[in-house]
């Protein structure tokens, strides 16, 4: 019970902050003369018409004072929060333009809905290269573990939230999620947990290739 | 001409529908045919120019009485056929035939047109409702009032029978109290 009370208290605190007025209507009489008096009082004070008045005022507000709420969704979109967790993005290194992913496979390991599949191999420089990387968005629950576990901030969540599909399985390839090389300048750094420190530029070094 | 055609159509339909009411084992069919038979009886009233009575038939029998029957029928499973308990077919036959005989005898006395006369002939100056009102409140005032008192008594009786628990509302009882009552 205690946590419910606590919850209530916080709610009351919030309502006070938002300047809501709590109406103290008292106890509703159930029967007899008090109930009758209440009914008569409410009918004669035309409380029902006040309700009609509110809706009519809102209609005038909406129609003639430009206070329509509707967002015509496919044509207009509301801005989403910067840390919104939608379709993944694969980021590139700012200097070289090479993808950041080092093929460590942590995201594949941690994925709780088993939707990430990757294959890696050594390229001619003996550097690990991602040969196959898919995310099954039919399975992905957008928990964000992959982005959190990634040591290189290579996989992050982006803002593309229109994920409806016609099939159960909808695979996204590595190349689809990778920032296009010509849009490297517009690549936004993820600002949340685990993001790059402000002096990240100074810390970037080439990955040592010789083991 | 039109009246006669309409009369025969209405007669055949009414008798057919009421036969369905009697013979059908499905509650839903019986109820529907009874209600539509009542509507067609209103048609007879319209045919003889008794508009007011026709509409009253429509409102009272179709709108109220049959709807109350229908409300009672909600407690049946209407998708299944009903098995009727007829204890003795002979008794059913005897009672049925004798009732039919009685009816034939009753109406047989009236069949010759000479025997029919109007105790309150139609006054063509009055509209339909006025004529009904005149008949009810002059010649048949006492039976009308007696019927009214009977209905009033029936209404009060109904209220007393049904109204014993009217003051307690289930929605106003707290859940815990309700559960305690269930345990008892």
């Amino acid at each position: 019970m205690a946590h419910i009370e606590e919850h209530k208290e916080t709610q009351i605190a919030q309502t006070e902050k938002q300047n809501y007025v709590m109406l103290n209507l008292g106890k509703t009489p159930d029967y007899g003369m008090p109930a009758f008096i209440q009914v008569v009082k409410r009918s004669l004070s035309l409380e029902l018409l006040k309700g009609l008045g509110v809706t009519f005022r809102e209609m005038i507000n909406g129609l003639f004072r430009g206070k329509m709420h509707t967002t015509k969704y496919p044509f207009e979109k509301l801005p989403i929060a910067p840390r919104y967790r939608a379709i993944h993005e694969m980021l590139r290194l700012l200097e070289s333009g090479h993808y950041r992913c080092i093929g460590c496979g942590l995201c594949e390991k941690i994925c709780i809905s088993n939707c990430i599949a990757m294959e890696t191999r050594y390229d001619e420089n003996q550097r690990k290269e991602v040969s196959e990387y898919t995310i099954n968005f039919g399975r992905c629950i957008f928990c964000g573990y992959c982005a959190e576990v990634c040591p290189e901030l290579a996989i992050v969540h982006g803002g593309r939230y229109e994920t409806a599909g016609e099939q159960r399985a909808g695979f996204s390839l590595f190349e689809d999620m990778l920032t296009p090389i010509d849009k490297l300048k517009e690549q936004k750094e993820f600002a949340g947990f685990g993001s790059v420190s402000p002096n990240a530029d100074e810390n970037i070094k080439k990955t040592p290739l010789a083991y | 001409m039109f009246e006669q055609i309409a009369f025969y159509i209405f007669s055949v339909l009414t008798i057919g529908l009421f036969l369905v009411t009697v013979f059908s084992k499905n509650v839903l069919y019986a109820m529907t045919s009874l209600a539509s038979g009542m509507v067609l009886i209103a048609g007879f009233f319209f045919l003889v120019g008794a508009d007011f009575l026709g509409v009253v038939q429509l409102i009272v029998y179709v709108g109220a009485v049959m709807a109350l029957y229908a409300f009672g029928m909600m407690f049946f499973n209407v998708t299944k056929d009903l098995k009727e308990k007829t204890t003795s077919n002979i008794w059913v036959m005897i009672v049925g035939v004798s009732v039919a005989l009685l009816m034939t005898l009753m109406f047989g006395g009236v069949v010759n047109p000479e025997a029919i006369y109007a105790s309150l002939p139609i006054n063509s100056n009055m509209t339909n409702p006025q004529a009904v009102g005149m008949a009810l409140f002059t010649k048949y005032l006492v039976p009308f009032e007696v019927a009214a008192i009977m209905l009033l008594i029936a209404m009060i009786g109904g209220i007393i029978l049904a109204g014993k628990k009217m003051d307690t509302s289930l929605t106003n009882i707290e859940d815990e109290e309700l559960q305690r009552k269930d345990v008892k």
Partner: protein
Amino acid sequence: MDALMIGTIIKILIILLIVSAIAGFGTYIERKVLAFMQRRLGPMHVGPFGLLQIAADGIKLFTKEDIIPQNANKFIFSLAPTITAATAFIAMAALPLFPTFTIPEALPLIGGAIVPSVIADINIGILFILGTMAAGLYGPLLAGMAQSNKWGILGSARTAVQFLSYEVVTGLSVLAPIMLVGSLSLIDFNDAQIGGIGSWLIWQQPVAFILFLIAGFAETNRTPFDLLEHEAEIISGYVTEYSGLRWGMFFIGEYTNMVTISIIAAVVFCGGYNDIGFVSGWLLFILKVVFFFFLMLWVRAAWPHVRPDQMMWLCWKVLMPLAVVNVVITGIIIML
């Protein structure tokens, strides 16, 4: 074929076509008005201002699969929607819509036909309308019972209770104006209020007017009393198992009843189709009916549903005594 006969047929066609069109158009209006009152836009994308939404809905209804549940009583199940639609249109037969007028001779074929204000001017018009609307309760009732669905049964039980109770109030509330006018014909009601706004019956019978409106809302199954298909409680009530055209017929019936109630309110209490000064009666009549139709949508946007027991309480403990007292007082005043 005399002129009146042709005129009556024209009138029947007008009512059938226009009212069923209004039933379709009413859904568009309802969605728009409700949207505006909630500061939304409503249907916008099919046609200009979403006007063709009606056509889109119609196509959807026509092409939808017609499902009859396995255990349902198929005959009654398919009969029920026609009852609702038919009774709603039969009630229209005794409604005066516009003043009687003659089609100009210049028109071929139908020139010179006299279009009467009422299709069937029976001298008990208003009772006939109420009686037919009372018979209309069999639509929802049988529909709910035939579909072998518990929500349907609940819906039809509510139908029986609600319509039966509120018929009493409708009848009693209209009784007081009937006593004042001394006739049951709606034409006489119209003629009794011929002398401008001051002679409207609403000023003499305000209580009866309010009672009639409340009962009319209940009889047409509009929002404060739409318990028959209360989504939050019983899915969709008596229309739970219906789809496609059969569902559409219930819909047409409901909207036709709304128009009927609006017209009765306009004719009985608000002066009918009489001219006021230079303003034509046609226009005024349409405006009145539109206002009452709008009122129904307005109320739907503003007020919440009532519980079934509250509805019964309102009917038998408040409205019916008020109606009886109103009738008695009217009678005493007439006698004096």
